[in-house]
């Protein structure tokens, strides 16, 4: 990480907690002008009600005006190049273009579809626990459990060869690492599209039962190759980086809150509530996509002109006393369903039902297999300069 870069306020954390200064913004003025990682200014929204309102208003807060293509130090791209880079990336569109793409994908992520996946997720979790047990402690929970499980699940769901994981995990790492120069992150994103383009071409000649095969079969006429590659690229990235960090950071959170861990061990039926509370308390996605105002707006009494960047601080919103009493406490006994860890509005995480299913299978299986699970040292490494917060390593023993 370059020493000269400072972490934007909404990404600063002390282990599990958002920076105290971020909470102060929420409790005082509510909205503050900050310097984004791209070197331009943006408005940070911190209160639960305001974050929900902004995320729920795609008309006035647009995802489609992607400033990232016009950031200082980046080469000027032509409109055609920008269109190619955006194609199929649901997060870079507003309705109705967004709706068109999203509707093609929702059948694959229904609650019922996830239930059908559940036995396979159980098998994948069991295989990885078996491998950890065979090798014996210590293990790195990130590389032996948290990362491979969601990676394998999303590979099977999409139709991506799992043998390619070293390459795509490295690319994902570069795409999300905010300490890298923007050019390098953009290059990784392009490489991912090229790779996915090859898989799409293969699916076009021989569409399988997976998601890429379904898209080719059912929407092959409506989607350009660039759109197909963009959709695949986004789902692959989002499908493993997020759940992976919830699994590692969530396990550490439970180990460091032994009374909560004990409660979950004693009453395993609390797993759904525990998953929601961990999502709320950890808020591993700092902000999701930045938005651009399409008109003059007012948020928390602050006037924001049209054409300005707006960033929603999800950890601040999820620790807002307006959402939960005693919000800084991890409490799996509470009802935290309304949290915004998956966002809100039309861009609410498409994969949320999958992520929930993976967690409700993986956490209990891990805790059951290793009743003596503990930190083995050295200290787990928190990763900060990243689109997704989490752990880069976490040594455990049992």
């Amino acid at each position: 990480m370059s020493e000269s870069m400072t972490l934007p306020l909404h990404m600063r954390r002390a282990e599990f907690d958002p920076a105290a200064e971020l909470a102060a913004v929420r409790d005082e003025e509510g909205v503050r002008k900050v310097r984004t990682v791209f070197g331009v200014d943006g408005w940070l929204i911190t209160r639960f009600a305001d974050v929900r309102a902004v995320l729920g208003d795609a008309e006035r807060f647009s995802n489609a005006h992607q400033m990232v293509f016009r950031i200082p130090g980046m080469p000027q791209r032509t409109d055609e190049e920008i269109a190619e880079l955006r194609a199929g990336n649901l997060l870079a569109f507003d309705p109705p273009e967004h709706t068109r793409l999203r509707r093609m994908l929702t059948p694959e992520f229904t609650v019922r579809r996830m239930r059908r996946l559940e036995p396979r997720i159980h098998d994948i979790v069991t295989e990885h626990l078996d491998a950890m047990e065979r090798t014996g402690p210590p293990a790195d929970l990130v590389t032996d459990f948290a990362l491979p499980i969601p990676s394998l699940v999303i590979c099977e769901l999409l139709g991506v060869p799992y043998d390619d994981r070293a390459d795509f995990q490295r690319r994902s790492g570069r795409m999300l690492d905010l300490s890298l120069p923007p050019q390098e992150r953009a290059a990784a994103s392009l490489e991912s599209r090229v790779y996915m383009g090859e898989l799409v071409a293969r699916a076009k000649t021989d569409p399988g039962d997976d998601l890429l095969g379904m898209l080719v079969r059912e929407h092959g006429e409506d989607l350009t190759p660039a759109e197909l590659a963009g959709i695949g690229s986004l789902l692959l990235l989002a499908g493993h980086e997020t759940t992976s960090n919830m699994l590692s950071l969530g396990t550490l959170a439970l180990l460091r809150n032994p009374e909560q861990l004990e409660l979950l061990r004693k009453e395993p039926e609390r797993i759904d509530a525990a998953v929601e509370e961990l999502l709320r308390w950890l808020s591993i996605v700092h902000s999701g996509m930045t938005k651009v105002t399409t008109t003059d707006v007012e948020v928390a009494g602050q006037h924001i002109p049209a054409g300005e960047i707006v960033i929603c601080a999800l950890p601040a919103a999820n620790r807002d006393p307006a959402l939960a009493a005693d919000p800084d406490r991890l409490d799996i006994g509470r009802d935290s369903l309304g949290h915004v860890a998956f966002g809100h509005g039309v861009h609410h995480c498409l994969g949320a039902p999958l992520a929930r299913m993976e967690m409700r299978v993986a956490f209990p299986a891990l805790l059951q297999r290793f009743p003596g699970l503990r930190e083995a040292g050295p200290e787990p490494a928190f990763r900060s300069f990243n689109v997704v917060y989490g752990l880069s390593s976490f040594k455990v023993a049992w």
Partner: protein
Amino acid sequence: MSEEQKPVRIRADRDVCIGAGMCVMTAEQIFDQDDDGVVVLLEPEPPAEHADLARRAVRACPSGALSLVED
């Protein structure tokens, strides 16, 4: 009668729905998803004991497709 037990009527706008499935997760007695993932209202006027669940589901809906019809 407490707020929770007052009967409610639910409206679902299938054009606005993004298929997030939050309603099914919250109250599968009241909501379902069709094969396209779009919301299906099983109980537009859920019995009083499910009124609280219905309210929770409406609040949880990310797209704003669900609303309560006040009498």
